[in-house]
């Protein structure tokens, strides 16, 4: 079984993100970047599937600037077998990503695409679903458990108010949620060996995909600053404020 794992290069989750002074986006120069944590979970799951014998090849894919290769290297160090880098300096929106991935799926014919449910930079939570729609494949989103059997995948989904278990046919698209697994640290010897694993490089044009944006970003702003609290004199006053000012009870 062949697995395709898309991995996105995002601002590291430990970095305090700053908005650019002209409000066109966030500051990314001289900022530490790393793999989207949800994608890390996807890579881990893929590696576990291979370790369990249910998968035999893992292809890590990243789309975007040259440095995306570092993100692919991380996936290779964690255990992916080879990488594909679709190189472009243009901004990629979820639909463009889904189209590029569709083209790659047609090229590589994997049995499963496993990817993070969303990226921590734009929080779109769209790519997996769009990809499934474009491919007309079944999808299991927000997976916190995956069980593979012949031609099928049982997916436990984290939904509002509990867990939903579904069974879908493969090939399929599965998006990973936080509790699916705890990703490993790539071992230091594997980091060194990853350098020797191949990464194919191509352009969106090579795949015949139009990546033109469909959305325009008008403005990016910091969240409003938290205002200072007020001290209340009594429980009665607190209840009154919650009821009439905050309107939460």
């Amino acid at each position, binding site marked *: 079984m062949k697995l395709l794992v898309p991995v996105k290069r995002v601002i590291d989750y430990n970095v305090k993100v700053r908005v650019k002074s002209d409000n066109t986006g966030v500051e990314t120069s001289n900022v530490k970047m*790393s793999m989207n944590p949800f994608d890390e979970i996807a890579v881990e799951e893929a590696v576990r599937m291979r370790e369990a014998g249910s998968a035999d090849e893992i292809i890590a894919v990243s789309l975007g600037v040259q440095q995306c290769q*570092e993100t692919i*290297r*991380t996936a290779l*160090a964690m255990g992916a077998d080879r990488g594909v880098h679709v190189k472009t300096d243009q901004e990629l929106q979820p639909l463009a990503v889904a189209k590029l991935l569709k083209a790659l799926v047609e090229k590589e014919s994997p049995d499963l695409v496993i990817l993070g449910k969303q990226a921590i930079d734009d929080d779109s939570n769209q790519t997996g679903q769009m990809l499934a729609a474009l491919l007309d494949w079944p999808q299991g989103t927000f997976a916190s458990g995956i069980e593979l059997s012949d031609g099928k995948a049982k997916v436990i989904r984290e939904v509002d108010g509990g867990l939903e278990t579904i069974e879908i046919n493969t090939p399929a698209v599965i998006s990973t949620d936080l509790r699916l697994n705890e990703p*490993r*640290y*790539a*071992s*230091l*010897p594997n*980091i*060194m060996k*990853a*350098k020797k694993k191949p990464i194919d490089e191509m352009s969106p044009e090579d795949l015949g995909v139009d990546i033109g944006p469909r959305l325009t970003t008008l403005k990016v702003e910091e969240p409003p600053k938290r205002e200072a609290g007020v001290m209340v004199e009594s429980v009665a006053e607190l209840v009154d404020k919650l009821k009439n000012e905050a309107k939460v009870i």
Partner: protein
Amino acid sequence: MVNFMALDPETLQQLLDTVRRFVRERLVPLEAQVSEEDEVPGEIIEEMRELGLFGLSIPEEYGGLGLSMFEEVLTVQELGWTSPAFRSVFGTNVGIGSQGIVIDGTPEQKTYWLPKLASGETIASFALTEPEAGSDAGSLRTSARRDGDNYVLNGTKRYITNAPHAGIFTLMARTNPDEPGARGVSAFIVERDTPGLSVGKHDRKMGQQGAHTADVVLEDCVVPAGNIIGGTAGQGFKTAMKVLDRGRLHMGAISVGIAERLIDECVRYASERQQFGKPIGEFQLVQAMLADSRTEAYAARTMVADAATRFDAGENIATEAACCKYYATEMVGRVADRAVQIFGGAGYMAEYPIERFYRDVRLLRIYEGTSQIQQIVIARNMMRDAAQN
């Protein structure tokens, strides 16, 4: 021996990022527990094995990473961000325990032992110090009497790091009783389960709880002559000195790492702690302490990087290595002392990590050559070089 930089910049960065993440996510949260329980949890040791930390300095052909000295010090600086007790778990396999075999071992010794040391399957300790032979290591008394194809070892080794966990000891013993100085000493590989070898109980220490030291007692301990590192008797002290050169840079690097951690703690505390209506970091007397710590840590980082780069280029850096060990370990002592001062009462309390680091770093100025021995090495080398020119 010339080592050129083995890794390209991206791979090195990824390696350092991984170590940094492991240290901050896995080790830092356990510092207080390890100090309290005097034990690094088994699963953490297993994770260190999986990560490859035991093999940092062992050549790739023997299953290690084969890092250059420059790469090793960068890695060790990352590891310095947490309690030095964690580093101790694999520190002797990276440094003094394994390097004798790496540098001077016979091909058979390397092939047999290095893969086990690189994977962490076997822990290696370095046994030089004795009750009567500390800084004056050349005067060691442990005897190795030739008996056919074997040597019979007798003596006591003291304060041996990782002795309770060691599978093998790189152990210095006197093979030539007529030669009282360093030339009569040989380095042996002694296996833990050799009859006649016993390890004493853990020493109780000022700091670095979780790292264990103990006495190693040898009573008619029979070791094959083939276990002499390199196969030739009388070379042991030379081997020990080569090992310690590299170890001095390692110690310099760990000092830099700890200093940077302490400075980070200090800056955060100085930004948050308010007195006289403003953060204490806005007072110039506190600022002076912060600036001194930062400056000295930077100086030490630069020294260690320079000496490591020159080591990799094949230069003799005996003097520079001593300078690094001397300056960096004294530096982190001052930084830790200022940290206690900046934290004030909180710096004296066990609830904050500062007092623990203050105790932990005290050892750095003592082991692997005291500051005074480093001063002597530096000055003697200076005088010798002057005489030769």
